[in-house]
């Protein structure tokens, strides 16, 4: 536990004293701002809007493809250095010779990434506050939407952490992560391509867009949560085994 907290605190500090987190935050907010702006101008021209298809649902749900595309940019960039840089610079040697377990190191680093991810999303709460000024906002829907985003982020960051542990090169880690996460994202598109059947069902279950569409309507589907949790746990478990395996390299 000691080790976990120490690693977590150092990692958060490192993320925010270097330009990386700030650059990502800026790019992310620019993109989100553009998406939100286009949605708002679209709805402003509409005379009547039903309860289930307001701007909040559009932002998190029907139009979530844009939002997920930005995650495919932000998450791999956030995770690429987490282990690759430690191994390239050799600091991993000092880290792993301290009395900490591989699990503490992996979880500490991962928790720091997840915190940073949450902090990057935090300013988007302002969008909801802006909408609140001019209309009614269903806070339950907002809550479930953020939960959906958190779940997707948790899974993406876990996969990115694993990819970063697989290589000493940040660039290779970045490319592997984008490849993997984009693949997962594309799999969800299969829902609209394949004929009804097993393949289409599988695609529908793993679809990030499907998840956001459900969650943005306030539908908390346990299967989605279990899927995100499974990907996250699997990624972190394998990462821990990879870190342990370095002793035998």
């Amino acid at each position: 536990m000691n080790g976990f907290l120490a690693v977590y605190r150092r990692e958060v500090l490192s993320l925010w004293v270097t330009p990386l987190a700030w650059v990502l935050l800026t790019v992310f907010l620019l993109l989100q701002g553009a998406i939100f702006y286009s949605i708002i101008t679209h709805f402003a021209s509409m005379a009547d809007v039903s309860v289930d298809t307001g701007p909040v649902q559009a932002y998190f749900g029907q139009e979530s493809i844009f939002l997920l595309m930005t995650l495919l940019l932000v998450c791999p960039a956030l995770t690429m250095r987490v282990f690759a840089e430690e191994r390239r610079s050799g600091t991993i040697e000092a880290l792993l010779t301290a009395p900490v377990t591989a699990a503490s190191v992996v979880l500490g680093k991962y928790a720091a990434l997840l915190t940073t991810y949450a902090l990057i999303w935090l300013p988007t709460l302002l969008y909801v506050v802006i909408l609140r000024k001019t209309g009614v906002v269903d806070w339950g829907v907002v809550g479930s939407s953020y939960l959906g985003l958190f779940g997707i982020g948790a899974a993406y960051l876990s996969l990115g952490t694993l990819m970063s542990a697989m290589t000493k090169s940040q660039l290779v880690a970045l490319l592997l992560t984008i490849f993997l996460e984009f693949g997962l994202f594309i799999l969800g598109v299969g829902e609209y391509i394949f004929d009804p059947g097993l393949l289409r069902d599988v695609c529908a279950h793993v679809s990030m867009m499907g998840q956001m569409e459900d969650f943005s309507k306030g539908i908390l589907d346990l299967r989605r949560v279990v899927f995100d949790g499974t990907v996250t746990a699997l990624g972190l478990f394998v990462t821990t085994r990879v870190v342990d395996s370095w002793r035998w390299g």
Partner: protein
Amino acid sequence: MIEVSNLTKDYGTVVAVRDLSFSVGKGEIVGFLGPNGAGKSTTLRVLAGFLGATSGRIRIAGHDIAEAPLAARRSLGYMPESAPLYPEMRVTEYLLFRARLKEVPGSKQKAAIDGAMARAGVAHMAGTVIGHLSKGYRQRVALADALVSDPPLLILDEPTAGLDPNQIREVRALIKDLGGDRTVLLSTHILSEVEATCERAIVIDRGRLVAEGTIEELRTRQKTSSFSVRVRDANAASEAAVSGISGLVVHAAESEGARRTLHVTLGNELDAEAAIEALVRALTAAGIGIHALVPAQASLEQVFSELTAHETALAKTEPEGKP
């Protein structure tokens, strides 16, 4: 403090350390010596718990590193070669992180960090970002990191590499100062370092133990011996007189008026006493007066090159790693 028995470490097909056994007692300062690529860093990494041993048992402060890795790591401070640090952190931030990681209790962290910085001589750099420090200071921050949890055992991989002569002297003084209540194992390929700081040395070459013992014991292991003879020899006839004796080589001679000094090396296989007798007889027979016969003090340098060169020659004769 350290007990290593039959340690072997291979990287796939390359065997870095083979069947190495040694032990280091409490309070000793031991030099781990060998040419570059001998397996020093690999051995220290295994001891520090960064690499796993392929076979063999290692006990650190009574804890088997395979069975109780955390307890073993808790009792040692390790300074990796080339001192890798996080460049974005300040010195105090880094040491605070390390103190937390090494389970220094919260109330003692500040004192531990200040103490470690003072001992390693980086107290005046406390607020500096590590990336802005020179190589020498980074090395000292890594040393402070090894000291921060006040461990009973210190494992230092080339602690003086990359330092200037003044800093080297300071670090050596610090290491001597640390001995006594602490055990220190330091690796180096510089012999004068071992002579200056260590009580005992372990010499390895090509992953195998070549010699082990106190500095004095190692000196006496010298295989070839040399001495100098001072003679009255105005005509420079002494060299011709001794040249007939087999296994005896005059490798240098200098004259000072009628006096002449011959530096003589005795071959490996030769009976040294018989050779010296023959030399004295030859010189007196030629009518040359002997003033002095002085055995040369074996330098560790010579012992080292002999030990490791011998090992290389040995390795060439036996085909290795082939079934």
